[in-house]
């Protein structure tokens, strides 16, 4: 667990935590990498995909190859998009506590209650946001839906791609789908879900700014650097709740642990 207390010495280029706060490594590189892959592919897939639905550029000149280029970029971006889901999917199981799958599905009663508490804050029924080190349960649930949408887009996209390339391997994996759901409906789903990503995009940027401002925890920086700034008290709380001495700020380790390293 990489965490840093306030240090006064020279040579630290990164932002120093406030007194009583800890600089904590929350988002590991695969989490950030897959996040940015998704961001850039969603943008390029939307631009090219919308063109493929309703060509909005008027091609000029004899050498024009607009649709061909759009389709090429779309297919390449689509496979990068797929790769991003695979990276993140693996990290659901081998990543740190804040990137695990149980952060996205409220599996305990406590997480469910916290989800409702967050809902109350967004519904103007609470004065202050509920604080979390990783994702709050509502954000986690929203991301679970988004990952579900990513999955649907990939599957429908692969079916539509297989219709044009006639690749036997691809047909082996997705060829059973079109007889169940006609390709036109798959195309419709593939297109409609794009707007789902747009809606999420707007909402996501808004809440990221909101929580950054409200909690002052370096949330916006954390998706670039991986580090958040957490009050020591919160970290202690999380350490006690999860029985994980690794989480404790170094200064507190001595206070609450016995010689064998177990939490008191």
């Amino acid at each position: 667990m990489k965490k840093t207390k306030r240090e006064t010495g020279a040579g630290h280029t990164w932002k120093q935590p406030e007194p009583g706060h800890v600089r904590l490594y929350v988002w590991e590189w695969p989490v950030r990498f897959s996040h940015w892959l998704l961001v850039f592919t969603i943008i390029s897939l939307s631009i090219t995909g919308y063109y493929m639905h309703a060509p909005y550029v008027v091609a000029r000149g004899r050498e024009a190859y607009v649709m061909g280029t759009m389709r090429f970029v779309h297919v390449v971006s689509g496979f990068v998009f797929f790769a991003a889901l695979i990276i993140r999917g693996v990290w659901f199981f081998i990543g740190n506590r804040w990137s695990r799958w149980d952060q996205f599905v409220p599996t305990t009663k406590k997480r469910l209650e916290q989800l409702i508490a967050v809902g109350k804050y967004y519904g103007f029924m609470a004065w202050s946001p509920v604080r979390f080190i990783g994702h709050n349960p509502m954000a986690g649930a929203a991301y679970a839906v988004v990952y579900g949408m990513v999955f649907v887009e990939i599957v429908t996209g692969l079916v539509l791609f297989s219709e044009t390339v006639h690749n036997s391997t691809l047909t082996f994996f997705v060829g059973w789908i079109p007889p169940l759901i006609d390709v036109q409906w798959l195309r419709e789903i593939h297109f409609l879900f794009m707007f789902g990503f747009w809606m999420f995009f707007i909402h996501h940027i808004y809440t990221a700014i909101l929580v950054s401002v409200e909690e002052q925890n370096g949330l916006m920086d954390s998706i670039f650097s991986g580090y958040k700034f957490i009050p020591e008290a919160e970290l202690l709380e999380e350490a006690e709740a999860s029985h994980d001495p690794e989480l404790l700020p170094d200064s507190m380790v001595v206070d609450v642990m016995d010689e064998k390293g177990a939490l008191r």
Partner: protein
Amino acid sequence: MEIAKVGLRSALEAREITRRQFIEFCSAMVATLALPSRYTTAVAEALEKTKRPVLVWLEFQDCAGNSESMLRSGDPPVGDFVLELFSWEYHELIMAGAGKKAEETLQRIVRDHKGEYIVVVEGAIPTADDGVYCTIGGRTALDIAREVCAHAAANIAIGACAWDGGVVSAGPNPTGAVGLQEAVPGIKVINLGGCPHNPANTAAVLVHYLTFNEMPELDQYNRPLFAYGNLIHDQCERRAHYDAGRFVEEWGDEAHRKGWCLYKVGCKGPEATYNCPTVRWNSGTSWPVKAGHGCIACASHRFWDTRSPFYDRLPSVPGFGVDVKAEEIGWIGTGVVAGAMVAQVAGNVVRDVLRARKDQDETDQTPDA
């Protein structure tokens, strides 16, 4: 049935079809079947030796469009060859007999040629209310199909209706119409979808059967791969305009006159398979897209339900009333979310002000120590 005894060559000569035209037909069939051209000789020899199997053409819930397509297929019509290659004993549209005599012929064929005759089915078969919505000579289509098709050497369902019910089974399908293979399960059917079927494909399947004594390779819908294995889009002569990004915006505009791609006006070429662009119609003269109309995917499964609207890219979204397009829902949804976020910002500003005031009040009320 006198022609049966004189052989194919004299029968064709009686129709003023020359040997040259016969060989042309054979090579066209070989080309349609995607066989190497050396097979032309084999096909011609096999056809000349054929013993002219009995052919029965059943019509149920149909418009006779497939019969018309067969009989008016070119000069000489492909139908002329097929008429001579088979002993065409029963076909309501063209047979001379009528009424009881005609039905007796059908009964005689089923009795005397059991397991030898070929059945071509045109039209859907109604199954609702015991199939009363289509009866011939007092018997339901379902009843006739069950008896005649079960004892056939091969069954060929031609046209969209005989394959999957076609327009007859399109929603709401009041007669419970289905295609042949669904109406009579357990029989071997080769489906030749299309509205109508392309007579060149049907003739090619029959020629394949007469030459090799088996049906060509089929896909998951029991359709011959030579005809239904490729996307219309990949064989389209307007494809270059598609890749370039040159599209017809509305019917009759400058782009339409220039022959640009019909994608934006709803052409279903990218989601339809058929050999329409290569085999074409009326002796290879033209096909819909060449003539300036988008493909409606008439050879696709349940195309009335799955490929409509024919003049839009995607179906209207169900559950939102009439003709609500996906992009309308998408843009409105995105707008609503954006609006909700703006409202949230306003709400948060108000909350911050109220919270500050509340905190101030609490501080004021705290008595000095």
